Every structure is written in structure tokens, then in C-alpha cells.
């Protein structure tokens, strides 16, 4: 049953995104189950439209978000990472998002110190009623990533590795 | 200071007098401001109807009779029509003008008062309004001798102004009503102040 993700990668050969010629933005969104996931559901039921390059990974709460998930996503070729949860005061678990915010603050500073391109790291609070905000956020983020192109700096490291 | 008041329980008398003259209970006014919002004359007014009613509620007589607001009321009754508490605000304005006159208060804007007087004088004299005479008399009284003077000849040319006043056989009846009404309003003033006196328990 338990197959380590590592073995999975090896099985799929290079395991890397397609060649730059057919590049499409790869955005990973870590979103909480109660607010942002439901907000994204609302965007769907309202038939709002946004570009199809975002991949959602559902977590119960932004409190569950370990910043190292973000590094893993970049290691695997993500061009942008979004983390989104309930607005302050609205957390289903009362305080998960406050704890998450502290982690963001520290991790963001660390990435900045290391010279990471911070346009590729977004944080947001999107409530269950903010389907429109979800759509706007994804549209804008996709636009930014499309303008920037692939995350070459990180990919170089990956390629060398 | 007009806007510094000491409340001692007597303030209710003004509201009671207005009620006696108009039947309007201003305790119902909760100061929502809709009358001021709809009033066409608000830009020219110092206080607007809402605040005028407030001064009555608090018995601020001196400040009330200093306002131009009641005199600028155009009697369009928009305020009355839209008041959420069905207060006949236009009537209150009429009553405030009436009270100011009866109490011999100095009127802050003279023109509407003069117009009122000459208009009614004309009516009382002729039974019907004689517009050219009324305007001339108004200009004389207000000191604005050439007010709308340009309009007169044009209207004359158009045949819109009669040269002589019409009169009516019922003129006397009309004058009688004028006289009686005047007597009654004075009496009502006395009664109102007595009632107010009684109710406030002094």
C-alpha cells in the first residue's frame, strides 16, 4: 500500500514538466477545506471563468500548511505557489490561520533573503463567499506567471541536480 | 447663547402649543431627516425642517423664531407626504409662522412675510387677487421697486395681466371669515399656553 513518492517519480522517468517549447504555467494552490476550497466551489457554481493552470491541493486548514510543502512544489517544477485560507477571525479551527500567518512571515523573509522571486509566492485569505476573489486571484496570478515565464532559476537547480 | 439651554421640565410647553394649534404631536418625530432630504428649499435654509422640529421638541423658542426655515418653506408638502410618522410638517411650518406673527417676533427674512401680507390684503380687499396691484404693492413694501418689472409689460402685451381688479359679491363673506379667523387664533394662543401650563404641572 504505502509506496513512497520517491519511487513514483523514478517510475515516471524524468518526472519533469514538458519542454519549454510547450510551456504552460504550473500553479499549485494549497487551500483550506472550509473557506477557500468552498469559495472556489462557489466560483464554479456561479460559472465564473479563470485560466486552467491551477492545481488545488486541499488541506484541512492553513494551519496544516508546512512551508516545506512549497519548497517541494518548486523542486517539482512549480512556477508559482498560492496558499489561501480563511480570513483572520473566521478559521474553522479558531486559530489555524493565525499560526499559519506567523509561518508565512518567517518563511517569506527566508525566501527573500535567499533571493527567491517573490512574485511567484502568493498568500491570500479567501472566504467561502468570495468566489469572485478566488477567480480574480487566480487570473492575476496566472497573468503574472505567464509574463514571467517558467521559474528558470529554480529549474536550473533542478536540472543540475 | 441661543444654543445653550437649561432643561427644567418647562420645555414641553412649546411642543404643546404647536400641538394645540395644529393637532400635530411632535413627540412622534424621531429626527430621521427625511423631511430635510426632500425639501426643495434646503439649500436656502439655515436649519432645515428636521432641526426646526427638534428646536420645538426642546422648547428652544428663541432659536426657533430666529430661523429662516419656516419662512422659506414653499408649502409643497413633500415633507408631509413622505414623513414616516405621518407628521404634517408643512402644517407645523405654517403654525410656526403664525405663532411668530402672533407673538410679535422679528421675522428673519422679510420678503415672504411681506408677500403673504400683500397677497392676502389684495384678496381681502377685492375678494379676488389683483395680480398687478399686488406686485406693485409688494415691490413698494419690500423696497425692491423693480422686482420682476421686466415681466410685467411682456405679460401685459400678451394680455396675461388684467388692467382692473375683479371683484366678487362674496367679498364681504370672505372678509368676515378673515376677521373671525383672526379672533380665533388669538384666543387659541391663550388657550394653548394655559393648557401647556396645566399639563406640565406647575
Amino acid at each position, binding site marked *: *500500500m*504505502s*509506496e*513512497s*513518492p520517491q519511487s*513514483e*517519480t523514478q517510475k*515516471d522517468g524524468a*518526472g*519533469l514538466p*514538458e519542454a519549454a517549447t510547450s510551456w*504552460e504555467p504550473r500553479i499549485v494552490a494549497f487551500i483550506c477545506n472550509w473557506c477557500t476550497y*468552498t469559495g472556489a*466551489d462557489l*466560483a*464554479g*457554481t456561479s*460559472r*465564473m*471563468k*479563470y*485560466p*486552467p493552470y491551477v492545481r488545488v*491541493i486541499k*488541506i*484541512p*486548514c492553513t*494551519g*496544516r500548511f508546512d512551508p516545506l*510543502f512549497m519548497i*517541494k*512544489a518548486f523542486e*517539482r517544477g*512549480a512556477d508559482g505557489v498560492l496558499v489561501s485560507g480563511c480570513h483572520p477571525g473566521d478559521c*474553522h*479551527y*479558531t*486559530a*489555524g490561520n493565525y*499560526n*499559519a500567518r506567523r*509561518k508565512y512571515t518567517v518563511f517569506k523573509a527566508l525566501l527573500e533573503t535567499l533571493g527567491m522571486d517573490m512574485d511567484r509566492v502568493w498568500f491570500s485569505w479567501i472566504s467561502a463567499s468570495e468566489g469572485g476573489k478566488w477567480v480574480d486571484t487566480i487570473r492575476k496570478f496566472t497573468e503574472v506567471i505567464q509574463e514571467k515565464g517558467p521559474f528558470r532559476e529554480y529549474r536550473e537547480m533542478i536540472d543540475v541536480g | *447663547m441661543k*444654543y*445653550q*439651554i*437649561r*432643561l*427644567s*421640565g418647562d*420645555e*414641553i410647553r412649546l411642543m404643546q402649543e404647536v400641538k394645540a394649534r395644529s393637532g400635530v404631536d411632535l413627540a412622534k418625530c*424621531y429626527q430621521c431627516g427625511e423631511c430635510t432630504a426632500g425639501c426643495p428649499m434646503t439649500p436656502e435654509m439655515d436649519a432645515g425642517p*428636521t*432641526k426646526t422640529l*427638534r*428646536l420645538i421638541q*426642546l422648547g*428652544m423658542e428663541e432659536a426657533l423664531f430666529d430661523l429662516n426655515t419656516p419662512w422659506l418653506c414653499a408649502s409643497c408638502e413633500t415633507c408631509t407626504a413622505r414623513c414616516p410618522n405621518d407628521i404634517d410638517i408643512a402644517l407645523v411650518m405654517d403654525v410656526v409662522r403664525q405663532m411668530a406673527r402672533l407673538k410679535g417676533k422679528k421675522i428673519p427674512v422679510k420678503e415672504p412675510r411681506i408677500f403673504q401680507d400683500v397677497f392676502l390684503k389684495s384678496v381681502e380687499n377685492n375678494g379676488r387677487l389683483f395680480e398687478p396691484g399686488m406686485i406693485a404693492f409688494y415691490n413698494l413694501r419690500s423696497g425692491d421697486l423693480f422686482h420682476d418689472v421686466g415681466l410685467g409689460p411682456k405679460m401685459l402685451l400678451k394680455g396675461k395681466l388684467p388692467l382692473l381688479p375683479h371683484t366678487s359679491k362674496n367679498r364681504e363673506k370672505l372678509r368676515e371669515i378673515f376677521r373671525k379667523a383672526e379672533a380665533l387664533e388669538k384666543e387659541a394662543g391663550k388657550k394653548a399656553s394655559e393648557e401647556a401650563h396645566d399639563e406640565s*404641572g406647575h
Partner: protein
Amino acid sequence: MSKIGVFVCHCGENISRTVDCARVAKASGQIRGVAVAKDYKYMCSDPGQALIKNAIKEHKLDGVVVSACSPHMHEKTFRKAVTEAGLNQFLCEMANIREHCSWVHEKEEPTTRKAIELVRLMVEKVKRNMALEPIRVDVTKRALVIGGGVAGIQAALDIADGGHEVILVEKDPSVGGHMAQLSETFPTLDCSQCILTPKMVDVGSHPNIKLYTYSEVEKIEGFVGNFKVTIKKKARSVDIDKCTGCGECQLKCPSKKIPSEFDRGLKNRTAIYIPFPQAVPARPVIDREHCIYFTKGKCKACQKVCPTEAVDFEQTDEYVEEEVGGIVVATGFDLYTTDKQGPYPDYKGYGEYGYGEDPDIIDGLQFERLASASGPTGGAIQRPSDGKEPKSVVFLQCIGSRHPSKGIEFCSKICCMYTAKHTMLYKHKVHHGTAYVFYMDIRAPGKGYDEFVRRAIEEDGAVYLRGRVSRIYRSGDHLIVKGADTLSGAAVEIEADMVVLATAVMPQPGIEGLFQKLGISYDQYKFASEAHPKLRPVECATAGIFLAGACQGPKDIPESVAQASAAASKALILFSRDQMLREPVVAKVNENTCIACWYCVEICPFTAISKKDIRDRQGNLIKRVAEVNPSLCTGCGTCAATCFSNSIDLDGFTDEQIYSEINSLMAVGQDLFPEPEKAEGDSPDEKAA
């Protein structure tokens, strides 16, 4: 090797309009570990569910991914279906290709590719899912109600009438709370005691209610369904079983000048006293701080006069333990004081009103006592300084409340209404007096409430002035109140005979100590916090603890009673089953690598993690580790993300699962996207329905 089944739903045309579902099924079939992949028009329909169930049996599937709508829509449906086919429900996951894909994207190649990737992501997750069982917790079907005001009384009666035992703890010698002090109640003006005392009597005599008055909660252990409560019964110095409540002792007690709490200092009481005639229990208590025997060692007048020898000077505080399954917190409120040094040291008093030192400046509860027929004046409105009937009374709203510079920003909610009531009570008793009210806004949103306020103004002639009062000072026989009326723009000065301050509704002073014992959160003012302000207004974030009444924030009587009944029904729901079932999304600790830094213990919002000693057979401590109580854990995962030795993980959202999801997204090869034309005719057996 996993055997996963993938079931792609067309949702009529809702998905298939923009997503090539057949291709999604085909591509899914090529993911390693996928044994079967099918698409179908309506997966949630009976035939759709049958298709899944048959596939589970036929292919001996050990995981299912239903690629359809949002899990918030149909996760329960499909989990039930797989359970019926013999698969553990937590081995079924949903890939959301409707709300998150078909509905929000155009019909184009990347949309179908996204759908395939979403399936792939869930397949990788499901491969690492564990068969989990819902957590079962035994329930003790008894309730603890803390606080014997109207909210506590109502909650206790409702639970007791529901057939369960209730432990009602009240810190004062009698139940009744503040409502017992009120004269009449808005907006109906019925007599407060008349409607409350029958309920107080019921509480005292209900076979299912165990009443602890003059008692406090000392300690609370355990968790939902299984709390163990220690109650301190303060020494009453009277044996209430022997006492008949005849009152002889009160008459003989020589210490008579103690300000009565019940009458809010407007009347005195004795050292041995029954707080008010309708008290339940109607038994006295000795106030040892003021009792001559306890302070000077001599007297015992009460003991001598007692016909039943009920007075017992040797009594000591007693501790009893009770086991309960749910707790209703109904500790109520108290009023802010304008004193310089009040019971709320964090908030400033009102020096501009003389710090509450003038006897004719009173608060709302004192006015209630003045107006009450059972009060110190027998219901006559008399000012405290000299007993004269006040000819003008000025009522000030928003004292403390909505006054950030004094430290309080909230609206106390009930003052507009009770002030209107006060003006009416006053005018009904003092016909020629004038009642003035300084207010900032009138907040009267309730059934018959605004009409009530308008009645006070229109019929009873209360003069409402929109503004605050800047100063109150004494001038001879009068109090000069200097305020304003912003509607007229006037500065207003009133010579008042008495001033009534509608002071802020505050939690009981020091109540946070109890909240800490309960492990429930509270706001900056020490009002208890609800789990969700809109959808869970009665529950605490801590499971099994419910809120009733003004301990949560300012509330009037009907609201407190309604919330009390709601809290009672929450408790009754809890007691309706022998065991509770909970989603097994809970944290678990890897004891091998846990280094006992206690970050998880500190950060858990539900105090679900505790410190555990691991000992060898001889009892020697080997190491200490964190331990999760699955009954308390709600599965937020904050601990898992915080632990830097990564020794704590969250079932259902394990690090491994999330990593494999990330990996699945990125490890995308060309072969995963068969071209649409190739899909035709080339379908591998059974991969497309």
C-alpha cells in the same frame, strides 16, 4: 501494488460539456496502480453507484477515486456506497472536476488535461490512504450547568426535563441571578420576580437537578462526554437540612449594617442572612467576613436563637466530585462601575461624573431595586441621599460601553431598552417628574422593542437627547448634568435630582479563571468565545461545552433564555447516544522521534495534546512524548505543520499524502495525455464505459 478504481462522472453535460470524460477515464486507466477506470453519465445515480460497487467487488479494489463534483456535494454519497461494497469509507476520495474544472474553464485541451491531473493527484493520495474507523467516545449522560441565573436555570430545567441529571452550581447563596433583582421587564412590563420565582422553585425541587448553591467549580478534567468536575461547597455555617428557614437568626443578628448585595448597597443586611425572601434555597448563610463571632470570637446569637440547632460554626469548605458529559456555562454578567478603583482594573472609571461617589448617581440595577416593589423603598422612587422624590431624573446611556478611551468598544445592547423602561417606571410613579435620556443611538431591534421605546417618548414624555454628558457635579441640592443635543446643536444643562447610569454589561470579574479551567477561549473583555459567530453560536470551540446567556456577551432575558434552551438541546443531542462518532481526521504522534519540545502542546487550539511519560517495566522514566487525545482533536493539523522534528502527522492529510499529491502534479509525462484521436477504438478493455 495498489488496485485503485477511477470513476469519471459526466454529470449530465455539466462536466462533459468542457471536459473529455472518456479521455479522462482512459488516461486514468494508464496511471500505475489503477485497476479500472470508467466514465458514466451520472455517477451519483443508483446505476452509477452500482457501477462503483460492482467494480470494487470484481476488481477487489483497495481504493476509489470518484472524479465528479465537489466533495462538499457528494463525498458522503460515495463513501456510503463504497462502504456498502465492503470497502472502508476513508479509502474513497473525490477529484473535483466540476466546480474546480469543467464549470470554470472553457472547452479546450488544457481543461481536459487539468481534469486528468486532478484525478492523478487523488489517485496518488488514495494509494496512501489508510482504512480508518470513526472515533467512538463513551458519553456520561449528566450535565453540569455553571451559574444559576435565568440562563442557567432554563438550561438546567430543559436538560432535566429531557430526562438527564443536572448538576447546577451557583456561587451565591441563592439561584436567581440578576433577573431576581429586576423590577419589571421590557417590553411587556411584567414583574420580573413573578415570572422568575416559579422557575427558581422548580430548580430547587426537580428530581433530576442537584443544586449546589454557595459553591464554585474548582477543577475540571477530561473531555467531551467524560468530564470530571470538582466542586467547592463553601462553608455556609448553616446546616441546610436542619434549617427551616424561619428567619429568627436574621432578626437576632447584631451585625446589621452590611450593604446588601441583592439591593446593590441601597439597603443593609445582617451577617447571617437570606439574600432575599424568595431565595432558593430559602436558607441563610453566615458572611464570615462580617460575623462578630468569626471576627471577634464572641456572639453566637444566631446559634442560641435557632430552634433546630442548624447553625454550625465549625463547618468547613467541602469538595465534591461529579462526572458529567457536557457542560453549560451560564456565568452571566455584572455591571461596569464608574469608580476609580472598580472590580475591572483594566478599565478607567469616570472622574468626570465623580467616580461614583455621589449617592444620587446610581446604576441601572440600583434603579431596578428602587423601582421594585420588594426593594428598599417598597417601589417608591426616592433618591438615596435623602429619600426625596426626584422631580427630574437624568438617564445616561453608553456609560463605559462604546467608549474606547475608557477601554470598551462594544455596545452593551440592553441599556437602550432598560433605560426606556426606567423612564416609563419613573413616569408611572412620579407623574409630574421629567425623565431625560442622553443617548448616542437607540438600539431596539427586537419584537415590540422599538415600539416600546417610542411609547416611552411619545406617551410617557421621556425627553431624549442625542448626545453624551461631559460632566456631572453637585450644586447644593441638585446635580448639574452638562450634556449636549447634537440634533439641535445645543449644549444642554439639566438640574437633576438623580442620575441613573446605564453602565456597560461586563463579564463577572475574574471569570477568566473559570474559563481557563474549562479550557475555553474568551475575548479581550473576558466574554466567552463561541466556536463560530454565525453557525455555532452556542458551542465553545472545546467540544462538549456550551454557552448560555450573558457570559458570552451582552444579552437580554429572552435571548439568554433562548440560548439556554439551545445549549440544553446541544447537551441533549450529546446525550442522545451512548457513544459519539467522530471523523477520524486526527493527529498522531511518532513517539520514536518526538523530542518533547511541546510546541504542539502549546499551539493546539483545542488542548488536545498532552505530555505523556514513557516508562520501562520498572517504572523508570525513559522519555517523555506528546500524546493526542483523539476525542478532543479536531484535525486542523497545526501541530503537524509546526513540529520541526516532523514527529506528528495528521490522519487523512499526512505529510506523505500531501507530498505524493505534489509529486503527482509535477511528475507529468507526455504519455499521460493520449491524443483525442488515439482514444477512439483503442480503448483498453473495460477502461471506458
